[in-house]
């Protein structure tokens, strides 16, 4: 069963705008990760945030985690057409699970 649920399911923006995607989950986690998938390709790891972290940055990506609300957000600043992809959040359960549970993903379209 899916743990993470991305919101919105689809987002269309113009190049240069910021894109914010949200993920909600249900159980306690060790970490939460975001992945990107370009059409017809495998998923690519973007960023990992641990349960004791509140915010993390990587280039144009900013991830926040609110464990009290069981939610995370991924912000992509100054979006580019190349950011067009599907984005997934994935959670590793607390207690050192060997597995990740992925959400259903959301589609981001960045129009040039």
């Amino acid at each position: 069963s899916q743990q993470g649920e991305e919101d919105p399911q689809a987002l269309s923006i113009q190049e240069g705008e910021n894109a914010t995607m949200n993920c909600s989950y249900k159980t306690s986690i060790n970490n939460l990760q975001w992945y990107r998938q370009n059409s017809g390709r495998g998923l690519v790891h973007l960023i990992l945030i641990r349960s004791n972290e509140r915010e993390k940055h990587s280039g144009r990506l900013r991830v926040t985690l609110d464990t009290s609300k069981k939610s995370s957000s991924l912000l992509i600043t100054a979006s580019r057409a190349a950011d067009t992809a599907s984005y997934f959040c994935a959670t590793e359960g607390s207690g050192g699970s060997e597995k990740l549970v992925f959400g259903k993903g959301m589609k981001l379209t960045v129009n040039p």
Partner: protein
Amino acid sequence: DAGITQSPRHKVTETGTPVTLRCHQTENHRYMYWYRQDPGHGLRLIHYSYGVKDTDKGEVSDGYSVSRSKTEDFLLTLESATSSQTSVYFCAIRDGVNEQFFGPGTRLTVL
């Protein structure tokens, strides 16, 4: 793609035939995973392996079996393929932090 390949990349088969998909890694990672991806369902774990000859079931393991006789190879077998197993199959490997690296996928069509 992080030293992970899948074969075949595309396969069309008929209902009732056995199918084996192969995942090969050059990273020497202990953990390997098989997922299927379907519209509306996202990525769902089929089976995973935590070492040679050590495997465990995932969320949607019915109708699938796996084998891992050496570190670099993880095989997924559909003993008797059904149309509901038409999907895109992804293999992944895991580093020490549980970040996963995915292969390019295998598109399987069962007629």
